[in-house]
């Protein structure tokens, strides 16, 4: 009897504990829940995805994670890195532009080869023209880049 109870106890302990702790965990940590990025695509293909394959400009707001795996489109005025970066960071970039500063905006400026001395003017110009850049709820990344280009080339 004691043995049976002990086994029951151990069973209860393991199931109870792990259910409490690990139920419905979505985790990227070092723990049990560590998930490789999107299954386990090879890391090299990820480098390639990030450095060479452009993602299309059809990504809209609401993308909170993930690199876009969309079909390629023709090289835009700026290089492919700009396309990928804007498509992957639509929300954060919009936020930075509305505030007139931020790490994502700085990165965009570097990718677009804006000289250091002009960065403040670049940021403030984009901020003032926020509504011209993010024209609607379903604006695409490609449109955003096009609009940014239109804003900075206008005087």
């Amino acid at each position, binding site marked *: *009897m004691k043995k049976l*109870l*002990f086994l029951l*106890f151990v069973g*209860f*302990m*393991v199931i*109870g*504990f*792990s*259910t*409490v*702790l*690990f139920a*419905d*965990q979505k*985790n*990227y*940590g*070092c*723990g*049990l*829940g*560590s*998930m*490789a990025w999107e*299954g*386990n695509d*090879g*890391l*090299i*293909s*990820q*480098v390639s995805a*990030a*450095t060479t394959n452009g993602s299309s400009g059809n990504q809209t*707001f*609401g993308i*909170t994670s*993930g*690199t876009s795996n969309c079909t390629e489109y023709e090289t835009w005025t700026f290089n492919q890195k700009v396309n990928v970066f804007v498509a992957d*960071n639509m929300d*954060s970039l919009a*936020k930075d*532009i*509305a*505030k*007139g500063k931020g*790490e*994502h905006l700085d*990165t965009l400026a*570097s*990718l677009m080869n804006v000289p250091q001395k002009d960065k403040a003017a670049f*940021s*403030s110009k984009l*901020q003032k023209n*926020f*509504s011209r850049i*993010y024209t609607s*709820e379903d604006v695409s990344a490609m449109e955003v880049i096009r609009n940014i280009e239109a804003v900075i080339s206008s005087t």
Partner: protein
Amino acid sequence: MRHPHRVRISLLLSCFLVLCATAGGKLCAEETSYLDAVLKEAHETAVHQDRYWHTLLHYKKGLFGTRSLVDDPRFFLAKDGKYDPEAELDAFIRAIFRNEMKDGKPAACRFVARYDWVKERLRLDTSRIPAPECENFNEPIKSFDSLLGEMQPESVTLAFPDAHINSPASMFGHTLLVVETASKSKLLAFAVNYAAATQETFGPLYAVKGLFGFYKGYFSMLPYYGKLQEYSDIDRRDIWEYPLNLTRDETKRLLMHLYELDNIYSYYYFFDENCSYDLLFLLEAARPSLNLTDQQRVWVIPLDTVKDVVKEGMTLGAEYRPSQTTKIQHLASLMSKEQQVKALKIAKGELQPDQALGQEISQDEKIRIFDLSIEYLQYLHTRKEVTTDVYVERFLKILRARSTLGGQDKEEYAVPVPPRPDQGHGSSRIGFAAGSKGGSPFQEISFRPVYHSLLDNGKGYREGAQIIFGDTALRYYSQDNKLKLETLDVINIVSLAPRDLFFKPISWMVNTGLTQRIMNDGKDHMIAQLNPAGGFSWKNSFLGLYYFMIGSSLNVGGALTKDYAVGAGASAGLIRSITDFWKIHLYAKDTYYGVGDEYNYFEAGLMQNLVLSTNSSISLGVTRSRTLSFYQTEVKCGVNLYF
């Protein structure tokens, strides 16, 4: 694309005797003799025992001799390569000479770091071996050199996303490497991550499989901004970045080894061969003089690997990157309650941004309100508390209003940097104490392998998070001349996540193990227990962090009449820092057991901790408990050392 003829011709040229050079696999006589000479030298100088060869192949000495920790057969060329460093080296040297293919490309191109090192170590005359044609293979995986050209790596940072307060699976934090490129932007750097690949969603199965190596671990690499979205925005974890002093050459070597590990698996073990441990091989590959993978402990905690790397003198300071949650809390702390409520209402769509714009408050106040509402709206969206459609519309509306207000140049937005996690107390603890229980004096020695309790010095650790594994206390009662196991906390986790205007988390605790408890004969008996509980906690400057919880309890033990008891109860307590070095925990809990044995257990206590130094403290505790009608008081004083 090169013409196939060219390959043939280059092979012909690289061979001195034209006669035998008809196919890639065969060798001419001179090459054969050169191969023999090289193999001989390799054997004579025992190159396979070289530490760097063991680093690159992940060889470690175990109970049953040397074996590689890598489990994927594609990582080895020799049949017995996993267990035989010498056979593997021989096979690799032969593969170089014979231009053998591995994974669709020449072995020398697939295993670039090995090739580079063997060439150097054995001073190979490259004019006498076939030149590996790495660029010719139009594989999904590019050659290392062309990837290097694309990435332009410059330096490496070790990133440590802190534990997430309410997520046990990430309770120890995580480490990853960030490879910075010529572009200088942190966001565009590459995050190198080692993790278990699984689609398992059933928690318990997940836990068991993770513990016993059922999952395959793979390296992955993606832009750092993607990782930041995961950790900082979705998972709400602060990140510490430790720039490393690796040179450009060392960085290149790190990537060469990473290239070899592409799509190669090792079985993943939560406690030792985990995300933090496998990254260390990359650092050793980068700088051969390092010795990080011969760890002393049987478990690998991410924070400990960070400490090891700091100890090696590899870090150039530490930078703090607060999570979105931390930013929200900081922003809110700058504002009055009234303004916080406005931000909350805007984020929830109860107040239109234009209305807020029209109000008669200062420009700075408006900016703060909008900035807070933007962050909070994003938080609501990642928590799926608003749909994407609603989110997008509201988000744009707030941003449009915010964009009319101009910049914010004040430094006030910068979140104050907390103490560095690597400068906190050691993750194991040993304690010596003396006291009296029910009038009977005792001496106690205790050992806690892992990790942090609510009362320990909080510097560098998350407030309100307690993670204890295997805490064991042995007591000697001099009156009875008896040595007793007093407690064994197999697991004792407490997560107190305070609720405020913006965040409404659940607090919880679970503890299981063995303890001595006074039973109906009025004497102490060993019982096994499992006590899960859940509730709420709050924080204010007067009370500190305080909590209320309800929970259940299971007792099993021979001293119980029916061998077991199941009960329910409630607990409350508060944890407050009186000064920098003095912390108290005052608590009470009451449990009624109704199934099995019927009895009531009540306990109240005041525990105190006085910090002497980062790795030492004094603890003082008084507890009073009651089982049925038996009262017992315990007083204990002791010293704790952390290491």
